[in-house]
């Protein structure tokens, strides 16, 4: 074999729709993932606006309770599995090969399949909303026996989960193979950018967690239709078994959502502090530690199910421990900023907001890990506030930091900084107006997943809804920013920022269709 990279037809960029349908190019697939994630974000966000509209006032105004429950459920599923996870896979596709000096992902055809499993899955989920009986309405956690009650929509959801799961598994296999097998000469593991590290760890989490979820929903399916009694006490089963299996997946899942964001933050903060990342090694080990702990803390979501005392104690202690490696990360970021020389372009603003607000979410998470206190917090809006502070402020703001950071690299044009700042401030302010009051609501006793509430909760709910609309419509600015940058604008240099670290900044913006035809030599 000669040293040409691949088939000849591969050197020029293919044209037309089939470029996107049949592509095996990591950048094209990355782009597909990112657009898919963004559309899903708008769809899931629109659902959250329906939720917030109904909750604007006490009483039933816009939707009936059953539809409300469907919105809650599908909002969460779309956001988690449609927006955030694919969004990060998009980043992985675009950036990992460039960051480690690889010509492409290790298994390009598989890569195409991972992406093209998503649209059918999303379609199934959307269809479920329109069949008789409606979509899934048992919450994104799909607890039986409630989830045994729904109609056809629940079955669609189960298959959605199967397809999404296949996509995630294939995607992670590809990422692992790429990172372990495709690094440029000299790119040792401990020289890899942190984003690559966190994705490597995330991929392992996915491989271990997603199949378990697939198993759980499969049991749900057979319980619903084929007479099994996994979750039916009359047949010797136990509904709580589902919760155990679900959360064995579900807790690692939340770190799947956050670790890539941590990776992005670890790239952005050093660049705009003009100072190398503080504590690289401890960052790596902290991520590994978080990943390990994530598999032994699942039952902190189930303190109220009546576990034996020993179980409650174990899961409480184990959960509290996660604060330590996470704290290490927070402190390392602070130490990176310390005595740096900072500027505050949009990516940096997002990174800072992400660290600050995630700290809030993480700390409330810590309060919930305390079993006796969680007896009060559990299933209230305090939880809703906690996880939007971690998921939105952590994962989504982290992702937005990444979008602004690499957008000039992807498109070859600088984005509009003014619009970026507008987007940032509206998002962050809107976010806090939406979710900070929810802490109060939860503490004061408002349960989650209700379409209607007692009068004493009215004011904060109103505030929260106003915030949601500010935050929601601010996201349309992002659309404008991205489209403008694709269409044109100031040419971006290959470095884009001032002396950023990493191989991706050594190639032109936008990078050629095949970045590293010959592998770069790393120091």
């Amino acid at each position, binding site marked *: 074999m000669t040293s040409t990279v691949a088939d000849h037809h591969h050197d020029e960029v293919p044209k037309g729709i089939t470029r996107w349908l049949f592509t095996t190019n990591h950048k094209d697939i990355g782009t597909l993932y990112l657009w898919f994630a963004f559309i899903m974000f708008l769809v899931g966000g629109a659902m959250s606006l329906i939720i917030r509209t109904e909750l604007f006032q006490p*009483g039933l105004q816009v939707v009936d309770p059953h539809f409300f429950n469907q919105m809650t459920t599908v909002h969460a599923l779309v956001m988690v599995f449609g927006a955030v996870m694919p969004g990060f896979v998009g980043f992985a596709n675009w950036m990992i090969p460039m960051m480690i000096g690889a010509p492409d992902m290790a298994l390009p055809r598989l890569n195409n399949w991972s992406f093209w499993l998503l649209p059918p899955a999303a379609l199934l989920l959307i269809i479920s909303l329109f069949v008789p009986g409606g979509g899934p*309405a048992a919450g994104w956690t799909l607890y039986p*026996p*409630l989830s045994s*009650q729904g109609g056809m929509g629940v079955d669609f959801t189960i298959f959605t989960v199967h397809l999404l799961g296949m996509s995630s598994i294939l995607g992670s296999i590809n990422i692992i193979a790429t990172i372990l097998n495709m690094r440029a000469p000299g790119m040792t593991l401990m020289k890899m950018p942190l984003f690559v590290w966190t994705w490597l760890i995330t991929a392992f989490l996915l491989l271990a967690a997603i199949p378990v979820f697939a198993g759980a929903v499969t049991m749900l399916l057979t319980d619903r239709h084929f007479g099994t009694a996994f979750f*039916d*006490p009359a047949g010797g089963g*136990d*509904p*709580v078994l589902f919760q155990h299996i679900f959360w064995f997946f579900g807790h690692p899942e939340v770190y799947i959502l956050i670790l890539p964001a941590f990776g992005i933050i670890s790239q952005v903060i050093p660049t705009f*502090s003009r*100072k190398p*990342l*503080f*504590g*690289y*090694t401890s960052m790596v080990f902290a991520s590994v530690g978080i990943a390990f702990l994530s598999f032994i803390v699942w039952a902190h979501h189930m303190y*109220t*199910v*009546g576990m034996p005392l020993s179980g*409650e*104690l174990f899961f*409480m202690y184990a959960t509290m421990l996660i*604060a*330590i490696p996470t*704290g*290490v990360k*927070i402190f390392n970021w*602070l*130490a990176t*900023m310390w*005595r*740096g*020389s900072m*500027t*505050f372009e949009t990516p940096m603003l997002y990174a*800072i907001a992400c660290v600050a607000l995630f*700290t809030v979410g993480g700390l409330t998470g810590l*309060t919930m890990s*305390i*079993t*006796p*206190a969680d*007896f*009060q917090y559990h*299933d209230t809006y305090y939880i809703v506030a906690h996880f939007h502070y971690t998921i939105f402020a952590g994962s989504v703001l982290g992702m937005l930091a990444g979008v602004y950071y690499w957008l000039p690299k992807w498109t070859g044009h600088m984005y509009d900084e003014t619009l970026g700042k507008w987007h940032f401030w509206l998002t962050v*302010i809107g976010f*806090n*107006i939406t979710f*900070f*009051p929810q802490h*109060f609501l939860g*503490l*004061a*006793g408002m*349960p989650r*997943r209700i379409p*209607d509430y*007692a009068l004493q909760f009215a*004011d904060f709910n109103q505030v929260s809804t106003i915030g949601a609309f500010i935050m929601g419509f601010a996201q349309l600015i992002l659309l404008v920013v991205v489209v403008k940058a694709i269409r044109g604008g100031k040419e971006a240099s290959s470095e884009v920022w001032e002396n950023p670290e990493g191989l991706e900044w050594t190639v032109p913006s936008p990078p050629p269709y095949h970045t590293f035809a010959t592998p770069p030599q790393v120091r």
Partner: protein
Amino acid sequence: MIVSRLMQLTGKVLSVTGIAGLWIFPANVQAEWKVNLQRPITEIARVQYDLHMMIMAIITVIALIVFAVMFYSIIRFRKSKGAQPAKFTHSTKAEVLWTVIPTLILIGMAVPSTKALLLMEDTTESDMVVKVTGFQWGWHYDYMEENVSFYSMLATPQSQITGSETKGENYLLEVNNHLVLPLGKKVRFLLTAKDVIHAWWVPQLGGKKDAIPGFINEMWVRADETGIFRGQCAELCGKDHGYMPIVVEVVDDAQYQAWLEGRRNQG
């Protein structure tokens, strides 16, 4: 210039620390707005309340420290002020410190939490037993030794929900039959459900517990105060999950006996 810089900064501080929400509230109504756990009226609820206040204090301090360092850096080490970047990449001393100190804090939190948990799980030596059964959508109460049992369901009229009538004071938190409990008695609850999982929760009495079909969970309550206390189902249980409230009425012993008598006569 200075002013705008200052405003920018305040904006940043407020929004980033998440206090922004608090500041836009008109001050006159602020007092009525409930922002914390409801006033506890049992030992368990009190223990939870104290624990909650303690950990809130700890995390507030931690958060403030993190923000303080962060904003100090943001203000002090900006390029526009001519800050020159340092070159250090790690410091074993600092890293050990910020591993060890959090560990100690966590241990400090774990001890009282363990104690509280042990107290809550001790359902022995109760004075009476009430079996609580959740169903879609309401509660069934069974005073096991007294041969008294009844259903308890939402009493708020549909017209208030749809808005054709003004909403009453206890909108959504009123039921046809109160669960009546005697003052100062240790009541052991046995919780189960008929169809799907529900959770029984009256904040002022203490934490919640799931009612799971096919299984029985236990919890206990000893009310120190008479009065009416309201709560709600706290586990998504279908369409009317938001409409299955709980109302507990704590009365003194004489009234309790009289109530029991009346109940029995009702059959």
